[in-house]
């Protein structure tokens, strides 16, 4: 998918928005704490303004290309965040097994429909992979993985 976009102007606006986001809560900070961030913020704002001006006078790239399927991109990105939230509430093991199956099924279906038989054939590999990493981190590395209301 190709989008028509003046990347210089957009990059400048992103820089200004980021600077504004961090500049607003600086009021209550002491001199030593704000000394360095203030210097960087000033440079950030200057660079952003120069980029915006350059975008109008001598623009660089004026189009942005998202390779592949934007729909798949968004679904997987949202899927990662759902997985993250699920880990905290359901527990690492269960949410990871479910997320692994869901992602594998969704991504494999690009090549054609995925039958239940095929998904079952993959089960040993998926369960072994998740199980080995779960046990390694929990038992060997002693990491307390989120348990949620399941496991």
């Amino acid at each position, binding site marked *: 998918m190709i989008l028509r976009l003046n990347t210089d102007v957009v990059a400048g606006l992103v820089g200004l928005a980021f600077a504004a986001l961090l500049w607003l809560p600086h009021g209550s900070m002491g001199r030593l704490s704000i000394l*360095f961030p203030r210097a960087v913020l000033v440079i950030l704002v200057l660079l952003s303004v120069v980029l915006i001006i350059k975008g109008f006078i001598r623009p660089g790239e004026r189009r942005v290309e*998202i390779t592949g399927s934007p729909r798949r991109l968004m679904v997987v990105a949202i899927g990662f965040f759902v997985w993250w939230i699920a880990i905290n509430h359901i527990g690492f093991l269960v949410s990871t097994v479910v997320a692994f199956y869901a992602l594998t099924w969704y991504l*494999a279906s690009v090549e054609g429909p995925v039958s239940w038989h095929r998904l079952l054939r993959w089960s040993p590999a998926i369960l072994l992979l998740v199980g080995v990493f779960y046990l390694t981190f929990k038992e060997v590395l002693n990491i307390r993985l989120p348990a949620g209301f399941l496991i």
Partner: protein
Amino acid sequence: MEMLLQALSSVLTLESFLTVLVGVTLGLFIGSLPGLTATMALAVLLPFTFSMEALQGLIALGAVYMGSIYGGAFTAILINTPGTPSSIATTFDGYPMAKQGRAYEALAGATMASVVGGVVGVIFLLLLAPPLARLAVAFGPAEMFWVAMLGLTLVASLSSGSLLKGLLAGCIGMMLSTIGVSPVGGETRFTFGYPPLQGGIELIVALIGLFVIPELLTMAAEGRGAIPSGGELRKRELSIGRIARQVFGRPANLIRSCLIGQLVAIIPGAGGNVTSLVAYNEARRFSKDPKSFGKGNLEGVVASESSNNVMVAGSMIPLLTLGIPGAPPDAIILGVLLLHGLRPGLDLFTETGVLTNGFILSMGLAALMLLPIGLLGGRIIHRAVIRTPYYFLVPSIAMVTILGTFALRNSIVDVGIMLILGTAGYFLRLIGIHAAPIVLGLILGGIAEQGYVQTMLAAVADPVPWLRLLQNPLSKILAGLVLVGAATALIPIWLERSGRLARVDQEPNAPGDQKEET
């Protein structure tokens, strides 16, 4: 000399060989998992060394350290994910090489460079420990500020297209490094009242997010694996001799990178990530073909990997002589030394010289062991990455990154930060703001801030406080190097834009072209 021979005989035993073999293999495995750092590898394996003799325990930890720093190169090359922060610069050329079907060439080159780096580091440590340690204490806050600035000149080479966007990305990275508790004032900054942000944004969390998540999203959107299946080992690639000729055919790159690695390694707090970035930048600057960097030049991989492995033994210099850990994993080694009643200083090289020299020599052995283990392991992991269908690869990598990110601080918030940064990183990449300069800013921001603020604090009574940054001879030299670095990075860009470089390129070709015609 007698002590050195005694140490050598204590290392050349079957027990030591097995310890090094197991240590390097374990380190390589842990280092290749995104999020699991060399420090974590050492911390996890530390309790196992308690029951060992002092020398065997130190040999095990040295081998794990060496293996984990090298292991980071595997994922850096194969899936564009630095296994450890020391491998950031390896991704710049390693992954493009993998995408061109030259993954094994990059892996073998990285292995050879790591072996050379490891051995050179050990030689430096054996011969130059006391004089280099004296140099280490000469680095005060002002000098550290200039070291960070020197690293920031790398932004010009990482900007890929627009210098302004590269600088903007560097500033964003530096601002991200200021989130959390201020290193000098001790105040909480930019947390928006959200307490979990007080710990700041951990470098590894940002690193994993900015490098891995955009790659996973691209793989998912394009419906392809990390590297094309055409990247199967070709017969031509299998020739280790040909790759060795490429690596050792340009010794200047290796020597320069090892020297940079050693110099940066002795500065406490700089670490392997700064080392490899500076070495990569210099390799690009001195190359006859700087434009090929970032597009799959083996020299870039060699520079990064040789310098970060020099750092393993190199950072032991301030540790063993002054008790100052040169890099975070060294702090764990210091703990083991103290546990066995060994105090850093001259006594370590005289009274317990056999033990100390044995430990140093074992690191050389670990570096040599990287060659067979790395070449074999590289081939196996390469084959596994290519043959795994992308619909398995994407969730597998995502699971390991989530686990690795969580394990850093047992924090689910870190996983969220990683995902937010990664998703933002994907869209920022579309508008020309790349991950590498952001990460560079994040690494150097903390070092620069501490140096800058401490210097300003010391100069509070001076009429012009900023001049304190240039008061010492060493800081003047470093400031000069920053200027030279910035000029050599910016002048070619300016020449290219103004069209002068094209004219210079054409002029020497002209007579040759005429000769061919006649």
